């Protein structure tokens, strides 16, 4: 370890240090605001030190990490999304009457786990990242532990995530037994090109196990069953975190593990992920139609969105990675924004999650409903929002390597998906009888929440109108 090696992992150090600092602060003096500020400082420091992380040429830290433009880009994305969750959580947790400060420690640790996933280059760091992320999430999901629903969701996630982790671990063991290596950049090409039939059975079994585990973490069909329940049961800021940072980190690891090269439609990997993409797009969009809970609708919608991203992942070179990254950015913004609106309207144990709660929101809280509409429009992929450009880029990546079946499924299923987005939108604009008044009390929301939502909306429209700078950034960082 020389100073140069240390400087490239400064963002990781900042995150870890911030987590420890918050923990120590709790030991000395409990202060919610101080813990919050300290967390933000840690996240800001991680962002500020990003330039050291990608100084130009890729900087491997053998054997565990690989620090390059890709790692820096995803670190930035994940840390920013995490900061969004923190800012939203501030107002939400203030209404929570038990210990609140540890929340931030856990959140920082989970973020660190996601960042390690993006920078990992070894099975050990991959597993370390996954576990750091998952274990923090068990606690985060069940954080307001006096409410049964949260605890139930936490236990559900605990069991399923533990099972999926053991799948991943077993898969790694099989692959290691066969290849004798745990370095991802060495194994990746072998796995990637493995044919559908006649491959090495040990390797195939290992690959299958890892795909199951990753599928669980991403929440794609048929490993999606936990998604709606955990989305619904977790406190909203944590749901936002699960939907963005957790899934984003695993997706970053997936792209590391199987770097999209030239498309190989006869490989076993293509077959498996193609099938999962189609199943996710169709099932996610169709099942969302049946929901009456906004959090569950967003859960199924996120299943579908992960399916869309898998299409670009499979499309491979030259646009696959940048399309996935750009789409992930737009998905982060819209998802954080959508859950952000729910967050500012909710408190622990008092969440505004039924679609009926949102009837006529536009006439009661026009700004909030406007923000929510913008996010929903972006998820639906309509113009002037980031989601429009993102979806366009995905379809472009798919058409570019002639994945006609996947593209057609994407188009048709997202049309089905429009229907429930329209339903949510329409709910905001239902005319309410003037005398009825709001169905339930809606709290005045915090300044940090309002500013976050404003910033997210600005980003959403900026990316929808002027995506060129971000395109440029993504392309220079990845290549």
């Amino acid at each position, binding site marked *: 370890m020389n100073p140069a090696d240390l400087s490239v992992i400064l963002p990781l150090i900042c995150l870890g240090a911030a987590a420890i600092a918050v923990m120590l602060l709790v030991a000395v003096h409990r202060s919610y605001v101080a813990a919050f500020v300290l967390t933000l400082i840690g996240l800001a420091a991680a962002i500020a030190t990003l330039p050291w992380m990608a100084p130009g040429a890729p900087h491997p830290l053998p054997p565990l990490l690989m620090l390059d433009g890709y790692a820096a880009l995803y670190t930035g994305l994940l840390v920013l999304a995490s900061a969004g969750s923190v800012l939203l959580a501030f107002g939400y947790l203030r209404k929570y009457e038990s210990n609140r400060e540890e929340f931030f420690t856990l959140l920082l640790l989970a973020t660190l786990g996601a960042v390690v996933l993006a920078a990992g280059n070894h099975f050990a760091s991959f597993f370390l990242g996954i576990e750091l992320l998952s274990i923090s999430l068990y606690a985060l999901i069940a954080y307001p532990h006096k409410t049964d629903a949260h605890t139930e969701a936490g236990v559900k996630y605990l069991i399923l995530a533990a099972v999926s982790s053991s799948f991943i671990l077993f898969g790694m063991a099989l692959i290691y037994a066969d290849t004798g290596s745990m370095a991802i950049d060495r194994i990746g090409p072998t796995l990637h090109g493995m044919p559908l039939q006649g491959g090495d059975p040990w390797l195939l079994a290992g690959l299958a196990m890892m795909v199951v585990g990753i599928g669980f973490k991403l929440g794609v069909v048929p490993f999606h069953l936990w998604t709606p329940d955990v989305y619904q049961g977790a406190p909203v800021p944590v749901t936002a975190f699960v939907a963005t940072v957790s899934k984003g980190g695993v997706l970053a690891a997936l792209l590391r593990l199987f770097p999209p090269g030239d498309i190989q439609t006869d490989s076993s990997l293509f077959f498996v992920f193609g099938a999962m993409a189609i199943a996710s797009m169709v099932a996610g969009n169709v099942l969302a139609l049946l929901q009456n809970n906004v959090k569950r609708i967003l859960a199924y919608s996120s299943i579908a969105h992960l399916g869309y991203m898998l299409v670009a992942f499979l499309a491979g070179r030259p646009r696959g990675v940048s399309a996935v990254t750009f789409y992930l950015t737009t998905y982060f913004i819209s998802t954080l924004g959508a859950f952000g609106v729910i967050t500012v309207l909710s408190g622990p144990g008092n969440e505004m999650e039924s679609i009926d709660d949102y009837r006529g929101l536009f*006439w009661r809280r*026009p700004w909030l409903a406007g923000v929510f509409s913008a996010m929903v*429009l972006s998820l639906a992929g*309509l*113009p*002037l929002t980031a989601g*429009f*450009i993102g979806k*366009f*880029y995905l*379809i*472009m990546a798919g*058409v*570019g390597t002639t994945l006609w079946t996947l*593209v*057609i499924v994407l*188009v*048709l299923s*997202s*049309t089905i998906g*429009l*229907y429930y987005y*329209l339903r949510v939108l*329409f709910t905001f*604009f239902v*005319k309410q009888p003037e005398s009825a008044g709001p169905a339930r009390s809606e709290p005045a929301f915090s300044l940090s929440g309002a500013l976050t939502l404003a910033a997210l909306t600005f980003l959403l429209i900026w990316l929808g109108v002027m*995506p*060129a700078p971000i*395109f*440029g950034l993504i*392309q220079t960082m990845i290549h």
Partner: protein
Amino acid sequence: MILAWLIIVPVAGGLLAWLLGRTNSTWPKWVALAAMVIDLVMGVLFAFERVESTGPWLAEIQLPWIPQLGIGFFLAADALSLVLVLLTALMGIMAVASAWTEINERTGFFYFNLLWALAGITGVFLALDLFLFYFFWELMLVPMYFIIAIWGHENRVYAASKFFLFTQASGLLMLVAILGLYFVHGRSSGVYTFNYMQLLGTSLSPVTAMWLMLGFFIAFAVKLPAVPFHSWLPDAHTEAPTAGSVILAALLLKTGAYGLLRFVVPLFPAAAAEFAPVAMILAAVSIIYGALQALGQTDLKKLIAYTSVSHMGFVLLGIFAWNRLALQGAVMQIICHGISTGALFILVGALQERIHTRDLNRMGGLWSVMPRMGVAMMLFCMASLGLPGLGNFIGEFLVLLGAFRASAPLTVVASLGFVTSCVYSVWIMQRTFHGPNREGWKPPDLSIRETAVMAVMTILIVWLGLFPQPVFTFVNPSLARLERIAAGSRPAMQIDRPITAALPIQAFEPVVAQRGERP
């Protein structure tokens, strides 16, 4: 830059209307009116200034937008675009006027949606970068959805969702086709771009061309609408508020026709020629089917909606006949159908505002109480049935004249549409304004505002019926250019395909002139 302003003014007006609407419910309509009047004045001044211009475009603006993907902000107007933009501004004013007293709640948001829909439509007529075109194509949907879903009639949510899903699904198919063209062009030339001018003349294998052409065609056929893609239209038109129906009928349907003219045939001339018989059959079926459906309706708005299917069939017929006469007819039909059907929807809206029903069985004998509305309705019904002397006659007649050279049997079938349109037009008059006034209606006659609206539209439709030549002179260079583009890339195809044979331009113009001057 003028082209950008034509879009910026309604966009800014919409935002202003929304902001002002939060404090005051009357300002938004004045803002909306002012924005559309400014748009119209800008457009008209621009048209007069450039009428003698000889370049390919009257004006263009090209800025980099997403250079990494070859996307530019490329707006350009030729005479065809400009005529449609003027129609948009004019019908925008009429739509604002027709909503003046009808929309009383949430006016700010209403006029915001109205102006943004108009801005999107204007953008569609001007965009020549295929990505930008798709952007505007999608942009006009959302405000239209809100207009129907919030301010519509009884069954509005169903109608709005159906409208949205139909157009969105077909729009995504078009996007896939656009991308397909982009990659084929990029691979063959090394230049990846969405620029229309560069994509013209891309060499495609016949099979690829046919698939890509179908992607575009379906999107435009849904908007037009042509049977069997029409089923959203009766619902959307019927449930929308008056201003929404006016925009749908007068403008939104025209974006489909414009797309066929500007993109489908020039980009895929060979595939379009091969597909032309099918398209013309669809057109003939639409003409007859729309008219027959109209005969069976008792809801006045639905009746008029079905007549749109029938009349837009003529446009489809004219475009795929693809000779000068038919194209001139199609353009004329686009303009006149916009005006006459817009006027009919305004009249029905005004009637509904007064007697709170659209049911033909409950109307009757209104002429004696509302003579002014009766006269206006009579005039536009006559326009709709294609009475010589009014604009629609010129359009439909020229389409049939041109289509006859392409396919005589289909022209015969299509001209049967004239018979049915007479029946339903006369029927509308007879069942609303004549006969006994069984329910004892005593509604007030047209107000000064409504009379003024009708007067403007009447003058226009009569002018187009008596002196259509200025319009033809204005758009002829654009049509000639489209024909040259389409012909340029398939010299060998013309001999054995009479449908697409280029006609000598000069030979037929005097006919048009005479037809116009001696109605």
